[in-house]
């Protein structure tokens, strides 16, 4: 195999693993968008809130990786609950922009709270496993492999929940046609809350996996998670669950190749440029053509 081919495949492998976390981030984001029909700008920060809770326990209470993971999920879910109550529940279907700006306000709250709780910029986070596996000419980090496995399992779990449980049916009806959902007896307000908490928990899991693979967490994590989740979601198609997967993996792979070829700065430029191109050319994303007009029509009522 030529060196170029080896590099490309290696990048793809790395990209798929990182992309699996992006997919989880996008999944949470898309669940919220699908049900709420608006963007939760506090999404990344709620994940960060969970991650910071975990870090605090790790640094000051000596918790191990698994208890930290549980705390991260709980923290993210609670933060999500707070955001849903304050920024989304009170707003009628037409005040979309108000709830988005409100979520931005909460973003600021959480970022500051995090900085107050752990004032240092860089904070250690428990790592999962170390070492790598060698498969022929390719190297695979063990913690990345674990990340992929956990992300894949979580995605399957969410899929099972959405398509095989009553709760999932409720969420899908609310996503499809909220008004009709109310008419058939779906408790819409409760479903919205639970979907939000589920989405935040999924995001929290992504956050844990990413922070653990970096073995550190900074206050920039909130914005970073929101951006990655957003780009991945839009690439795959707004409000599309399979799109979140496709978008996340695609973003991971493209970023890996771009970084190898062009370096970290240009890598980000490529990511944004790709998003812009996708929007300008195929607004529905790689998967979701149907979402375009409805979302646009709803958003127009700003």
């Amino acid at each position, binding site marked *: 195999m030529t060196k170029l081919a080896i590099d490309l495949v290696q990048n793809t492998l790395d990209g798929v693993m990182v992309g699996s976390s992006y997919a989880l981030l996008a999944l949470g984001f898309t669940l919220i968008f699908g049900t709420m029909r608006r963007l939760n700008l506090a999404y990344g920060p709620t994940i960060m809130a969970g991650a910071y809770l975990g870090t605090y326990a790790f640094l000051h209470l000596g918790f191990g990786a698994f208890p930290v993971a549980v705390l991260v999920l709980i923290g993210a879910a609670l933060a999500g609950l707070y955001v849903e109550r304050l920024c989304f529940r009170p707003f009628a279907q037409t005040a979309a922009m108000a709830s988005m700006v409100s979520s931005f306000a909460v973003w600021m709250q959480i970022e500051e709270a995090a900085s107050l709780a752990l004032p240092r910029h860089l904070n250690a986070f428990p790592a999962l496993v170390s070492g790598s596996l060698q498969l022929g000419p390719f190297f695979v980090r063990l913690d990345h492999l674990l990340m992929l496995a956990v992300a894949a399992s979580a995605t399957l779990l969410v899929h099972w929940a959405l398509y095989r449980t009553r709760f999932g049916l409720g969420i899908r009806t609310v996503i499809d046609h909220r008004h009709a959902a109310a008419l058939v007896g779906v408790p819409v307000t409760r479903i919205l809350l639970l979907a939000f908490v589920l989405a935040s928990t999924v995001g929290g899991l992504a956050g844990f996996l990413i922070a653990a693979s970096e073995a550190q967490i900074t206050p920039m994590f909130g914005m970073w998670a929101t951006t990655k989740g957003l780009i991945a979601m839009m690439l795959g198609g707004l409000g599309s669950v399979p799109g979140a997967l496709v978008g996340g993996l695609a973003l991971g792979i493209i970023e890996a190749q771009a970084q190898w070829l062009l370096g970290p700065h240009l890598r980000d430029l490529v990511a944004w440029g790709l998003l812009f191109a996708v929007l*300008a050319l195929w607004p529905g994303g790689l998967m979701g053509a149907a979402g375009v007009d409805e979302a646009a029509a709803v958003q127009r009522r700003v």
Partner: protein
Amino acid sequence: MDDYLVGVLSNIGIISFVALSAYVLLLAGEMSFGQQAFFAIGAYAAGIGTAMMRWSLAPALLLGAMVGALAATALGRATLRLSGLYFAIATLAFAEMVRIVFELCTWQIDIGGTLVGPKGTDGFGDIRYLFENEITPAQYLCAIYLLLALVLAAFMVVDRSRFGRALRQAGADPVLAELQGVRVVRVRLVAAAAAGALGGLGGGLYAHLLTYVEPRNFDIMLGVHSLAYGLIGGLGTAIGPVVGVLIDIGLLESSRLFVGYRMMVFGGLVALLLIVRPRGLLDERAVHWITTRVRDLIDAATARRRDHPLRRP
């Protein structure tokens, strides 16, 4: 007037330009998270104007505004098919790309022994036009507010004009507007250009106030803030965004209260305010209420004058 107050007021005035930039697009029915791109473009362009091409301030600011307008029109063209959230994300992507481009570009020339010009992530320093021409902070403050006042006056005038009506129509319901003869595409592009010019002008002013800008100044935070200011202060009038800026930078930044957890308080207040007033403090209803009261007062005053015994019939 002490220096600190001058500084804060100057900041408020300048940030108002970005806020107004986002506001113009809101009137056109579009939500933009990317107006900071034009702020950046204007800052760099105006800085290049005075620091590198040795122009005086006015033409440099004009350059900033024009480049901002051009860039905004280009973006507007590319995003014509988009609306709502898709448009918003596209503007965000654009702004981030602009910011990263500034992080990557370096262009410096030798001015009297020192290298002057943008230098990637290090930013663009030595924009010392104000110092070199002995313009005091207070004088600059007056210039900023003079420009702002002109801009606000222009908003008032345009609001009553045919274009203003067309803009609001296109914003409220583009399909209906098109049927009523409004060229929605044209209106949106003009609005985009105007917004770009406002952002660019503000950026130029900003660069000269700070004498040094770096790409980090023009991040997503600034963009979302600009949008938020309009929504907090109220969407009913151009003064709304300025009020929003005033509340954030004025009340909170400069107040000694809540040091350390200012953002938490501000964030909470904003969230609560929006629940009560989803369209801001000076929303359309409030503005309508105020204008009718004012009109009533004026009518009452003129009526009284009409009944004055000494007035000839």
